[in-house]
């Protein structure tokens, strides 16, 4: 499985990398919305899931999400927002824009793994 993490925080990408490795997946990284669009233009056929932060310099996560859903090449890739934005209004906005899941920071690694599995439609993850 190939997952794209879009977050301006390298430490959050590192946390996500840990979770993806537990799932034997491969992580692609982008530190901004524009970087994410570059990665997607090259790799979209291989990406199974996008984990998207909201507050980033330049394009916000919501703007990236809107671009993804407006482009037929990327539209079908599931997107999980991974963000500190936890106001109901913003969650609704993201879901309406096409996010399939929404995970609010802070989270535990176990929770992240569980939500990644759900987003991929791969059932329940059980910690050994």
């Amino acid at each position, binding site marked *: 499985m190939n997952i794209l993490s879009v977050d301006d*925080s390298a*430490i*959050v990408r590192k946390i996500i990398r840990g979770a993806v490795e537990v799932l034997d997946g491969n992580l692609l990284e982008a530190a901004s919305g524009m970087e994410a669009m570059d990665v997607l233009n090259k790799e979209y056929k291989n990406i199974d899931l996008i984990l998207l932060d909201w*507050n980033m310099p330049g394009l916000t996560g919501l703007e990236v999400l809107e671009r993804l859903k407006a482009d037929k090449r990327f539209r079908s890739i599931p997107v999980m927002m991974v963000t*500190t934005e*936890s*106001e109901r209004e913003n969650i609704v906005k993201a879901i309406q824009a096409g996010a399939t899941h929404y995970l*609010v920071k*802070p989270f535990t690694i176990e929770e992240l793994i569980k939500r990644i599995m759900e987003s991929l439609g791969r059932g329940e993850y059980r910690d050994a």
Partner: protein
Amino acid sequence: MHNIELEKIAEFFTESLSQVLRMMAGFEVTSIDCNQSDETSMKPSIMAAMILHGAKDTIVSLAMEHSTAAVIIAYMTGVLPEELSQQDLFDGIAELVNIMAGEVKTMLSNTPHHFLLTSPFSIGGQNLELIYKESLPQVCRRLMAGEMEIIFQMAHI
């Protein structure tokens, strides 16, 4: 300058930080007012801060020693402290401020104290200390988890 509203909001921040540290790193944190505590021997070498835009613009900050930052970020990421780079520590503590501010933003969203987040930033050095003008409403708390110590500061600017 003492300000009851700021004190209450600061309480939200320290509770949020305690919760984040409990959830992501497994630490139990206690908090005391800097003015009510003994002189600390802690010499902060890393600080992260964020400006909050609201009816009253505010700065929140966390300051600690590198060794404390390394332990916290190691627990958050699952990476050994000695394998974390300087940049990881700066980035991680900034993210801690971001998470804490995000939680409080939601708590205050339908109140006159609601605010917008900005990009968190970090500062490195020796014996770091943020000193505000005495006339500014401000709060300082010492947060302790075992032998680790974090200074939380908040001030209207």
